[in-house]
């Protein structure tokens, strides 16, 4: 069984924001919602690094633990999804998430946020695969079509890797061996438990 993970190679990411655009276009997410974002550290100075980040689909997902209506579930592939029909828009997942992944379509007074939206690893939601209802709420379900997330597929420098954790780390390890330097599986120590292949 695959265990899906994201890995962003900080030595390759050029902050083109292609992943962000691809994601928005593929899933037709509402205005103001960005399931993925690129963060640049030490912007404009030597040693600048960029990282593309979205939901990391954590092993022991904090969002799922704190959700008052228990709307999250983890698929057999280790993808963390949620049911928008149950979501009450309380924002607790946003308080708990270390990566800032949960997004809300509205930011209004009286805590009105609307239903939470986040990266689905292009795996849709609880509705029937690629049904109109699923597409409207969660965007396309590429995993059901045997494809991997579009952000990684579109990445021009192949900095962003998505797929089975073992294969992703094999590819990354090979790169490190060739180019030298230390491996930095950014965010993995926060998101994944040891031994979670």
């Amino acid at each position, binding site marked *: 069984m695959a265990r899906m993970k994201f890995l962003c190679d900080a030595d390759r990411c050029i902050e083109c924001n292609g992943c962000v655009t691809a994601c928005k276009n593929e899933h037709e997410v509402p205005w103001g919602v960005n399931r993925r974002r690129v*963060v*640049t550290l030490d912007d404009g100075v030597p040693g600048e690094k960029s990282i593309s980040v979205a939901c990391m689909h954590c092993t022991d997902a904090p969002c799922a633990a*704190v959700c*008052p209506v228990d709307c999250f579930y983890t698929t057999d592939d280790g993808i963390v999804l949620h049911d928008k029909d149950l979501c009450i828009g*309380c924002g607790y997942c946003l308080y*708990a*998430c270390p990566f*800032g992944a949960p997004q809300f379509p509205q*930011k209004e007074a*009286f805590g009105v946020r609307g239903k939470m939206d986040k990266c689905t690893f292009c795996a849709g939601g609880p509705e029937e695969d690629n049904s109109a209802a699923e597409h409207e709420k969660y965007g396309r379900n590429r995993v059901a079509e045997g494809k991997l997330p579009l952000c990684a597929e579109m990445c021009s420098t192949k900095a962003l890797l998505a797929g089975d954790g073992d294969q992703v780390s094999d590819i990354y390890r090979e790169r490190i061996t060739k180019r030298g330097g230390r491996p930095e599986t950014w965010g993995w120590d926060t998101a994944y438990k040891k031994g979670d292949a």
Partner: protein
Amino acid sequence: MRAETITRKPRNRRRIAVVTVALSMLLAMALPLTGYIAHDAGMAWAQSDDAAEEAANPRAEYWRAVREGQDGYSAVPGAEAGVLVQNGGENWRSLRDGPLKFFGGSLLIAVLIAIIGKHLAMGKDRLDSPTGRKMTRWSGFDRALHWYVGISFIILSITGLSLQFGRALLIPLLGKEGFAAWAQLAKPVHDYLALPFLVGFTLMLLIWIPRNILRSHDFAWLRSLGGMIRKDHPQAGFMNGGEKIFFWILFFGGVALMVSGFYLLFPNLGWERETMQLSHIVHSASGVFLIAISLGHIYLGSVGVEGVLEGMVSGEVDEAFAKQHHNLWYDEVKGIAPPDKSSAAPDVSGATPTT
């Protein structure tokens, strides 16, 4: 001489006991702190190790800063979009799902058991000899304010507790869909009722301050728990000692509740996640605590003590009630001079005397 030592002995023994208990408590608190010294020493070692590592690999420091919430630049707009890792959420999660749920839930259950136990053991506190003559205790405005705040507090409590404990208690009963339907109603009700509650509650707390200033006879009341421990009738003015303590818990707990609630209610004002996490902890802790003491208030104000509810519903109480529970207020209204001036300074009363 000898007689003196004998009489002193129990006192000495008590003093020794007190000092021993205090010392052992102090040690019990201080000893675990030595762990910090060991920890800090260890930290110093670890840091020098890291320093050596940084010289070889400057990236180590870089990624540590990222893990600790270092801010970067992001083209995507939004609060804290530049932060890659925010660790506060893990602390918030463990506080909310651990101590807050455990101690909050235990407190509510303990209060319910205490109320039921008290009622079974002591029964209703009845009036000794009702006279049928009435005294005005609560004005129409006071009563309207009380019930307005009380009813909104109960609605806010039920909706708030649903978000805190619903997943554990209500999902097994209602199912996920059923509970989500209730929660989707409960959340906006809680949010929109918050401001009207805030206005009423603030007004109530402010205008009832003068009646609730603690006086010397209130401490005597508290020492005998209103006659529950010693079977006497301790002195009380318009409000008794217990009611005053309840008021001041409401006052300070209420301020914490309303300030933290304000932050949770207006995420649009751009608070960072850390603020929301802290506000949530303060809000649910103060909320559960106020609910717990309000259960006691509701019990004593309804089935616990005869005559209280009548006063808050009709505004009038039996003279026997006033004499029995608020003797200083009764004397004041009736124009009876207090027997001892020092113990019975005139208590501010909100009611006008009637016959």
